[in-house]
């Protein structure tokens, strides 16, 4: 490959290391007795650290490139199926961070649930491998395999609480619906292959460019677009493809709910952006109206449904659906007739900040789990401020951040996306989104009211493990620090947008 001599395997090293460690965890687990399962967590953590080092190595290669004054061009491996560009590196880091925080938050939760097994950590690592393939795939086959690897791992994790009926049901539902949507998605991919005669994204983009030329029949491209989009919308849980999310989120172990809601979602977005920008770029005029429709439906459905939830996990499931709606607005602004790069930038910023604040929320919920209390009803949060003030204040920070209050991290996601909407002339959409953001304050404040303005039902102190403290400290600090000093994080996002590619993409990611 031009300009890169370390071999293909170096590019795949982050994934290979994770796989290796995951297998290692599975083996070590057999040797461990019940009391020392925490070693699994450490092993998995080490795997993430090594993988991060490998990603850093790739990042340095980009730095070398920049030092030589060359434009940033992606590195290809395995006959061009794997494409690691800065965009992918950004997502690699995001997945690794989310997985690491999830592991920190999981240990005690699994002990309380009495389901502390090594598979749990191995599956998290496997799903991260899948996510990385989704973010760095340059080929339909690899993207699809990545998607399935991620999804299958998640199906099992959702049903990890074997003795809990809710968990089992959620997993079954998620599996059936996931399989169904994967079918639709695969059908779309096969049509794309049929159109382009290749599974390579660039080839597809070029073929579609020709197919979209004036005067040509567009039926097959349109059907390919619709089926592909439907599969993707399912994965990001956009209305009306969202039905699985509340059930899966509610039934899954809380730590996994957090993981799914951030890493799972970010990977689905990475995949969606890869396909919509890199392969389907020429079809922008066709898919923007669909996006507008789905975005409105998603914001409406998510926000309205969240208003009357009494189960916190379900509430945040709908809240995360609503956030998908806002993120979609970024894609609309970024791919509209007059595209504005702030839209795509907004998506990346949004996913970054969302990772921390939403993981924090689920961390707090997970820490409420005790032997006798599931801790996921709104009433279980009553008077938390008087029992565990630090946790309550952290939760309030996350809530305000989710509601988009400056100067907390969540503000910037909305800021860039709404700004891009205004700049690309979508005033009506911006107004609608703004109204929904105001509505969303209602259900976030319901949670805050429960914590600060109700008296606790019991006086049992909330015990928090060191791992959970670390997780909450990281997420809380990130939410505040990104808010007060966003500069380096925005620079990171800008850095990852420098993806010299085919002209369509270059136009969208200035």
């Amino acid at each position, binding site marked *: 490959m031009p300009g890169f001599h370390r071999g293909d395997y170096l590019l795949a090293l982050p994934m290979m290391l994770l796989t290796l460690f995951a297998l290692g965890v599975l083996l070590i687990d057999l040797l461990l007795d019940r009391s020392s399962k925490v070693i699994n967590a450490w092993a998995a953590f080490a795997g993430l650290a090594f993988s991060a080092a490998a990603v850093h190595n790739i990042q340095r290669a980009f730095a070398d490139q920049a030092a030589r004054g060359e434009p940033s061009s992606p590195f290809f491996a395995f006959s061009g199926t794997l494409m690691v560009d800065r965009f992918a590196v950004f997502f690699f880091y995001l997945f690794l961070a989310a997985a690491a925080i999830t592991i920190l938050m999981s240990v005690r939760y699994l002990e309380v649930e009495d389901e502390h097994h090594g598979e749990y950590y191995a599956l998290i690592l496997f799903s991260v491998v899948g996510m990385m393939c989704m973010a760095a795939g340059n080929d339909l086959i690899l993207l699809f395999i990545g998607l399935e690897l991620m999804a299958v791992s998640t199906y099992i994790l959702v049903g990890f609480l074997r003795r809990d009926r809710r968990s089992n*049901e959620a997993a079954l*539902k998620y599996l*059936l*619906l996931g399989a*169904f949507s994967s079918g*639709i998605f695969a059908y779309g991919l096969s049509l794309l292959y049929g159109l382009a005669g290749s599974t390579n994204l660039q080839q597809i983009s070029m073929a579609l460019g020709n197919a979209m030329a004036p005067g040509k*029949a*567009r039926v097959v491209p*349109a059907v390919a*677009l*619709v*089926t592909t*989009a*439907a599969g993707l919308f*399912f994965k990001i849980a956009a209305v*009306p*493809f969202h*039905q*699985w999310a*509340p059930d899966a989120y509610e039934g899954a172990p809380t730590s996994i709910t957090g993981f799914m809601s951030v890493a799972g979602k970010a990977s689905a977005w990475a995949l969606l952006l890869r396909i919509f920008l890199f392969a389907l770029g020429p079809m922008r005029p066709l898919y923007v*109206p*669909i996006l507008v*429709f*789905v975005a409105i439906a998603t914001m409406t*459905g998510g926000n*309205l*449904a*969240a*208003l*009357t939830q*009494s189960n916190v996990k*379900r509430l945040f499931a709908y809240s995360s659906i609503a956030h998908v709606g806002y993120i979609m607005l970024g894609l609309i602004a970024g791919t509209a007739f007059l595209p504005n790069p702030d839209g795509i*930038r907004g998506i990346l910023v949004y996913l970054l900040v969302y990772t921390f604040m939403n993981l924090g929320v689920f961390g707090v919920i997970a820490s409420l789990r005790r032997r006798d209390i599931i801790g996921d009803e*709104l009433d279980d949060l009553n008077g938390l401020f*008087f029992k565990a003030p630090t946790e309550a204040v952290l939760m309030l920070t996350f809530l305000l951040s989710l509601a988009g209050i*400056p*100067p907390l991290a969540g503000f910037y996601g909305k800021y860039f996306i*709404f*700004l891009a909407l*205004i*700049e690309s002339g979508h005033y009506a959409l*911006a107004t609608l989104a*703004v109204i929904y*953001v*105001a*509505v969303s*304050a*209602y259900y976030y*404040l*319901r949670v805050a*009211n429960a914590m*600060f*303005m*109700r*008296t606790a039902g019991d006086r049992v102190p909330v015990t928090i493990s060191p791992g959970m403290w670390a997780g909450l400290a990281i997420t809380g600090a990130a939410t505040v620090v990104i808010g007060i*000093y*966003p*500069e380096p994080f*925005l620079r990171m996002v*800008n850095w990852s947008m420098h993806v010299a590619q085919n002209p369509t993409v270059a136009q969208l990611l200035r």
Partner: protein
Amino acid sequence: MNLHLVAIPLLPLAGAAINGLLGKRFPRTLVATVALAFTAASFLWAVWAAIQFADGGAAGPYIEHFATWMQIGNFQAEYGFYLDHLSMVMMLIVTGVGFLIHVYSVGYMWEEGGFYRFFCYLNLFMFFMLTLVLASNYLQLFVGWEGVGLASYLLIGFFFWRDSAAAAGKKAFIVNRIGDFTFLIGLFLLIKHFGTLDFASVFSKIGVLPTGEATGLLTAIALMLLGGACGKSAQLPLYVWLPDAMEGPTPVSALIHAATMVTAGVYMIARSHAIFDRAPMALLVVAIIGCATALFAATIGLVQHDIKRVLAYSTVSQLGYMVLACGVAAYSAALFHLMTHAFFKALLFLGAGSVIHALGGEQDMRRMGGLRKKIPWTFWSMTFATLAIAGAPPFAGFFSKDEILWRAFSSAHGSWVFWLIGLITAGLTSFYMFRLWFLTFFGDFRGAQHEEPEASGRERHASDAASAAPPGHGAHGASAAGGHGHGHDGVHESPPIMLVPLVILAILSLVGGWVGIPAVLGGGNHFEKFLAPVFEAYATAGETAPASPAEPSGPSEMSLSLAATGAALVGFLLAWWMYHRRPELHVRARQRLGELYRVLDHKYWIDEIYGAVFVRPLIGLSRAVLWRGVDAGVIDGTVNGSATAARELSDSVRHMQSGNIRSYAGWVAAGAACVLVYMIWLGMR
């Protein structure tokens, strides 16, 4: 010259942090000392900075760059502080009045639980409010803007065991969010067209535009900003949160919901005068909203029985005056009234708090009366404040209200309609304020005789609260259960720590207006001249009229002044007649007015209308969205009794296992089909 303005907001933040982290273990004296010391330090720093700035004699603003906040492409935002005459006035009001209210709160909250929590929130509020008024760009202003909203939410819900308090906090926050986001859209428009949010650069970019250029855009921006102001400053149609906000402790009502936070909208409009000046349409809308709010809220205030609610509607009404002044481009008049209002309205609330304190939590004026001898200090300071707000010369309110009415009449953007409505409102204000005054301090004490005082007398404050209140929460939150003596015999004057702020504010309510005595009354109108450099900057040539417009024909300022005083006098006499001389009259009047009284008593049913038009449909839709899902059995509100709940739950679970998966898959398919139909309909060629 380096004024280190950053210290002014940071000092209260330090106080909040100390009390928040350690206050639980501190004795009350230490909590109070920390809170007062940091606020006092902030005030002294502000005074020092103001003196330095004034001595410097610079006409332009003093801008302090603290740090770069973010930089994206060409857009840059700073953490910076902006001191000019306008923010100086605001800064001094916020720290000065804020400090006095802190002092008062020590006495008022002494017996409450959560003492440290209260001062932590209060100091936090000071931090955000000072961030707001000293911000050097709109984004930082917006941070303060949201922050004061948060502090307000926490403080309104301070007595959280009253459900109404928790609900009121939430309501305030959510209503404000609506305004906040139109504000944010306004900021995006500014970024889109001017590429910056920095005050100095935005205004100078607008300042160099030729007159008449980009009027449409500036009107749009101005209206969006106005939306934000309507939320924060409780103007129509977003005023509904402020009366409910009275659920907070009384010092909070005084500080946040009368003197400072609610004036942020007025400040923001005045700060953005360069935009508004060039958007005459927007100015007209501002004036109409201010005018309508002033009248509307004053009429509601006529019939309220809760002493704090009268003051709340009065605040809404007075804010309407300030907005009206902004709408006729008389920003310095708006600021003048903002300042005097901060004095006398804070005093009215603190006085009302002192009354409530004396009566052990009673807020209903029908159960007061004859208190003037029992609590003379409170009585006299309240009298000063009442005279000031009613517009009696030479009290502060007279001059500032007079200035607004005169501008409403004479300004290039003004009209006799605005003046007339303002005049009527002045009369109404005088009437309901003296009604309050007579009902509270004159006649006989009615606390004991009114229908069973035990049960209904303190329903809002005691009976339901006392049982639910956590241990350790005393006096006002759970009122009758607290440590005060009750009934007539227990009425007692407040301790000195509460009276001293009252007296100081009473003096300010008298003399505070003297800085702005208009020339026609022999004064120098120093206040307007003081602010002139701010409001004359960036003005278009010939757009803003000079300070004293020549009015060859029409009534003179003097005669308008007399009319306003007359209106106040009529209001006073009517209140005297109806509530003192012939107390049975107001009962007759109520019967005679029947329907009209009912409309006012129910506050025009605005809350009910909003509930029916916005809240209920949203909740209904929420249920409708979920109807097909499994939520129907578990959402709150639909659950009637646990037996039904359990059955519904198990039903839905059964469905979940057999049929629903298929129905979900059906939804996915249906979604895809819809999109497909849409594509075909789009006309595939």
